[in-house]
């Protein structure tokens, strides 16, 4: 890794929490990557926006809740956290229902530009 210049890497998390391990796998990948000194961002879209809901009480299904996991993100070197506006709207989720308040809500065309600016996409 020594001489390689820093890259813009976007993690795209599109799956609902709990039903499959993909949402958790994406989060683990983001957190493990934070030590690598790259320009990391994270985008929630489609059912992935459900990960952001407050009041997840996953005690009954024996998993740590995303409501409690996601707030660690700002402590890591994640430059920006994006949430797809149309995905929220379609699910009638409002901004004050989200567990993170430092997110940037962006629409489809902004996502198109965001993708185009990256050096790599990690798709989950």
């Amino acid at each position, binding site marked *: 890794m020594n001489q390689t210049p820093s890259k813009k890497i976007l993690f795209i998390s599109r*799956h609902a*929490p709990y*039903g*499959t391990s993909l949402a958790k796998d994406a989060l683990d990948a983001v957190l493990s990557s934070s030590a690598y000194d790259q320009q990391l961002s994270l985008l929630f879209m489609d*059912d992935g926006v459900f990960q952001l*809901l407050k009041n*997840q009480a996953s005690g*009954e*299904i024996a998993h740590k809740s995303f409501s409690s996991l996601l707030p660690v993100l700002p402590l890591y070197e994640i430059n920006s956290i994006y949430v797809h506006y149309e995905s929220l709207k379609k699910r009638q989720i409002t901004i004050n229902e989200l567990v993170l308040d430092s997110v940037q809500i962006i629409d489809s065309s902004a996502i198109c530009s965001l993708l185009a600016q990256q050096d790599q996409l990690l798709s989950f």
Partner: protein
Amino acid sequence: MSTLHTINKSPFSHSTLASCLQVCGKQDGILLLEDGVFGALASSPCAEELATIIETGVRVYALKGDVNARGLQEKIRAGILLTDYNGFVQLSIEHKCVQSWY
């Protein structure tokens, strides 16, 4: 006798709930579990068809543990009945067969 239909995928990303509603009879029951509980939201793509079928007498259930895990306690639409695994077992006995849509 009738059929219990179980749905474990989000209707926002999978068509299983829509498929189930096509063939669900008046005597049948539907159980939403795992990511299927997103089907209990008022914003669900199948919300209208679900409302119609509930009016005809079909009972639609959602697993409480899965609803709570996803933070949907306050967001479930009226007419959806909450149940637990004991209820799931009971439903599977009250219906003759179980069709799992996955």
